[in-house]
């Protein structure tokens, strides 16, 4: 696996970058996290991003919070983990509580409801785009391009289409996929 080009200089920089990306994350932080950490700051390659995200998704806990902890820990141990976590949560927490106080007054305005729908639609598009961007990385997967593509599509259909609980899909499909990778790796 190739290494990323750059690294954060200090826990303080982690805090600032994570605060900024969290505040940009309307309707989900994950696509912004990929944009900022991989494409802009270049702290991680796409492969490293998938690796951390994979771990964060099989473990309990909010995926992006787990991701922040792991990214922070990678360079500065628990100090980095705390800095990234605080950056991810503190400023958005203040915003969301202020919004909760405001919400009651403006919820019935049609333009506000419409704007929320529009932002929700773009949020869905951004997550899909991120999945497309990460797909070429599967070509270098030891499973092989087509088997790993098949696993990805099966997971998407089971969780997105059939709405099966993600935990069970991860356990069954993930177990099979890891076993297959184990068999192919020597």
């Amino acid at each position: 696996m190739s290494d990323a080009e750059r690294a954060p200089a200090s826990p303080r920089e982690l805090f600032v970058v994570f605060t900024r990306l969290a505040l940009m994350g309307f309707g989900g932080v994950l696509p912004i996290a990929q944009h900022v950490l991989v494409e802009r700051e270049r702290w991680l390659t796409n492969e490293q991003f998938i690796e951390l995200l994979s771990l964060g998704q099989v473990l309990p806990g909010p995926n992006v919070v787990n991701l922040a902890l792991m990214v922070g820990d990678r360079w500065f141990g628990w100090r980095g983990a705390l800095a990234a976590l605080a950056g991810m949560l503190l400023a958005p927490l203040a915003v969301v509580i202020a919004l909760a106080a405001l919400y009651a007054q403006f919820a019935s305005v049609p333009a506000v409801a419409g704007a929320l729908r529009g932002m929700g639609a773009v949020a869905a598009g951004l997550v899909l785009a991120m999945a497309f961007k990460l797909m070429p990385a599967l070509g270098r997967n030891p499973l092989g391009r087509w088997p790993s593509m098949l696993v990805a599509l099966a997971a998407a259909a089971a969780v997105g289409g059939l709405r099966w609980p993600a935990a069970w899909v991860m356990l069954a499909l993930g177990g099979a996929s890891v076993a297959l990778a184990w068999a192919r790796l020597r």
Partner: protein
Amino acid sequence: MNTLTAADWLGLFGHFLMLSMLSIGGAITTAPEMQRYVVGQQGWMSDEQFTASVALAQAAPGPNVLFVAVVGYNVAGLLGMLVTMVGILIPSSTLALAAMRWSHARRASRGGRAVVAGLAPLTIGLLLATGWVLAAPLQGAPGAIALVLASAFVMWRWRQNPLWLISAGALVGALGGA
């Protein structure tokens, strides 16, 4: 907002510690159980308040886990927010860091590489599923679906700052196009 006894506070904290360990696939997966506890069992808020708490956190910037903060705030103000957020974060965060250090130390082994390789396609599949689930309520609205596809295409082809697309979506929606 409610007045909580010491036993209530302890119960609230304990319940969110437990929810944390159940939150595989993201904090949002615990919403049904959380709703059962704060609305059904404790009667600390109405169904509508709970649903609005989730919707609000989704629309605001930041991780979706912040819906927990809004629920906690609606249960018992700022202290309620603190207790529920700390409760939902401590067990899962500790586990995430331990697992990351463990796997990083074993990344070169056959088992470690098999786990990384085997889970990568699943991660991409879950992203597709998330986009699917987020877009599903928009099915009846061609404008909104067009917005989903257009933003997916633009973001896929170009290294765009997503904030521009979100603002465009808000504008289109506010004008009644979504």
